[in-house]
């Protein structure tokens, strides 16, 4: 019916997808820089952050206009509210990618360890989670979003194992202290990215099915 409004919603979605792909690229670059010790890529991640920040503001403004001028209701309102949260989520993921890139550069200055412990496993899972969270938004696929929610526990477990393993390492060899602390930082940032990808998935379910799944809200009812 209201074709003009639909076009505006469509263009909000398009710019949010663009934001998602820039953020995903930045995360992937930060992780590749980490695993392959690539200084250039790490610097690129840090430079790219300004792009993410300006997209965030652009999306914020588009959302304010839609709320003020179009008085959205029902699924349109849920979409716009979800878009606002996802925008914020993506910007925070961008920040964590930068943190990882900075750790990458720190690691390169000190003698790296032979093993990254659980990090390679975390990287594989997080890349998949983020990709699925974004795809579930693009395709409006709550089932895919659900798989993201279910994967988060794996990351939490790996993050805990990392802490234990790093402590063991530090006990055995004090020269590894700087490296160990960077690895803890990276693991912590990875765990945050997984959590935020989970938030995105929750927003997709809210938008697509009008269900609130965060904080186990449905079980408590």
């Amino acid at each position: 019916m209201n074709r003009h409004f639909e076009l505006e919603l469509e263009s909000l979605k398009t710019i949010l997808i663009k934001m998602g792909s820039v953020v995903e690229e930045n995360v992937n670059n930060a992780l590749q820089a980490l695993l392959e010790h690539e200084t250039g890529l790490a610097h690129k991640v840090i430079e790219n952050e300004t792009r993410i920040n300006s997209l965030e503001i652009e999306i914020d403004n588009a959302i304010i206009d839609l709320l003020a001028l179009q008085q959205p209701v029902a699924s349109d309102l849920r979409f716009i509210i979800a878009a606002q949260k996802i925008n914020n989520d993506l910007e925070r993921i961008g920040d964590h990618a930068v943190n990882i890139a900075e750790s990458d550069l720190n690691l390169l200055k000190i003698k790296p360890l032979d093993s990254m412990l659980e990090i390679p496993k975390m990287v594989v899972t997080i890349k998949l989670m983020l990709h699925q969270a974004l795809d579930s938004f693009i395709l409006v696929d709550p089932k895919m979003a659900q798989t993201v929610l279910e994967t988060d526990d794996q990351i939490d477990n790996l993050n805990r194992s990392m802490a234990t393993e790093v402590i063991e390492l530090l006990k055995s060899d004090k020269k590894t202290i700087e490296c160990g602390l960077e690895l803890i930082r990276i693991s912590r940032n990875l765990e945050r990215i997984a959590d935020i990808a989970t938030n995105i998935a929750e927003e997709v379910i809210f938008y697509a099915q009008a269900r609130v799944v965060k904080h186990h809200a449905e079980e408590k009812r």
Partner: protein
Amino acid sequence: MENGQIRIQVKSLNLWYGEKQALENISLDILTNQVTALIGPSGCGKSTFLRALNRMNDLIENVRTEGEVLFEGINIYDKSVDAVELRKKVGMIFQKSNPFPKSIYENVAYGPKIYGIRDKKSLDEIVEKSLRQAALWDEVKDDLSKSGLSISGGQQQRLCIARALAVDPEVILMDEPASALDPIATSKIEELIFELKKQYTIVIVTHNMQQAARVSDYTAFFYMGELVEYDITRKIFTTPSIKHTEEYVTGRFG
């Protein structure tokens, strides 16, 4: 304000109904191919201002006007200007749809006939084109001989828009064009406004602030005969510059 081509330039317009001043020193540029919404509480002067743009107020007794309304570089209040010719170029749509008690075809062909078009083929073309532009053609094309009064209220309003378009105007003034319509018919009129602004300049008076927000590019807020604020609609509804405007659009007064 963003730069655009000016279609109508209003300079220091004052208007009195007898002793009572209804418009005070209004200056405002109406931009080409844009939708300008006039908002404000009842009696603020917005409808008077709209009618001043094609001299509809001439039809009311005891109206006195000062200042200029420049259209195509000429003050429309100059003695040399023919009001009928002006209203052909600056058409008007009213709150209550007012089709003639004639067929749909005759409603649309009426204006062109008055302006001397007699050729059946030309008239047929104008009628079809105008009804298409008014997004009504598909709904009425099977029986154009049906009375203009027999169709629904929303369709009647679009018929009136087609009738206004048939004389090839440049500006369309709309006085509460959707206030008597249900939400679906309203939404059709609003969509139509988006289509029409590609070719025409539109000025709309509306009591429905949300409608002004949805359809317009520029918004002018009137209060007690004065123009309080005029800016890009987005600005008026997100960050108005004047507190009075903020209070009105947020529903805190008026």
